[in-house]
């Protein structure tokens, strides 16, 4: 039941932000919604009722690190697309290695 609720809440939030991103122009502005807190709001809301504010606060701290990794990841994707003319699927999937390395590396360095 808990997992079904998570799935539903996450799906709805992501779709809502995706619709916003689809209709807004210019494209660079719409791109902001590619980093919208859709998964975060769904997950943290459920965690708040289940585990409380301290737990959510710890998730928020790690999320900050993940978000900075996301910003750098997006710059890498942009460079792969513009300079190497890679396809979007190739650029976004291959650069995931950057996101994993940065987020896990920074987390280990800053939090332990």
């Amino acid at each position: 039941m808990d997992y079904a609720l998570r799935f539903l809440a996450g799906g709805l939030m992501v779709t809502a932000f995706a619709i916003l991103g689809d209709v807004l122009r210019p494209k660079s502005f719409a791109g902001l919604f590619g980093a919208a807190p859709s998964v975060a709001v769904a997950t943290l809301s459920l965690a708040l009722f289940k585990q409380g504010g301290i737990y959510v606060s710890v998730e928020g701290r790690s999320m900050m690190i993940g978000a900075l990794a996301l910003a750098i990841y997006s710059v890498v994707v942009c460079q792969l697309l513009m300079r190497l003319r890679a396809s979007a699927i190739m650029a976004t999937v291959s650069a995931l290695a950057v996101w994993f390395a940065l987020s896990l590396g920074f987390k280990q360095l800053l939090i332990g």
Partner: protein
Amino acid sequence: MIVHARISALNESRWYEYGARFALGGMTTLIAGVISDRFGPETGGLFLAFPAIFCASATLIETHERKRKKEHGVDGYRRGTDAAALDASGAALGGIGLAGFGLIVWLLAPDHSLMSFVIASVTWVVISIASWRLHQKFRHSGK
């Protein structure tokens, strides 16, 4: 550059594309929760900023742009890649806003649980839009 909404853009997306994003969003939320349960909130929190949805959006934008150009008899490979790159540059700025969201939740959630989400969401909007405007300003002043 003026921000505006183009509602007709919704007609370019098929229902299954929204279905795919719904499923991807649901799966990412589910996996983030499972990782938090299994490895703790320190590791699970990282996945609240996992770029799964961005991967899907960038690919769809590229596909739509290429299709539009093909309908006009033009090879849209370059245009599709450019559109996806623009989306990525926006996501980079949104990522800075998302870090602001995390910072507010980290600082305020223990004492002001629900209110912290409201303030964090406003923070995301303000930082994202401000950094986008700054980026636009420097891009145009550099030309």
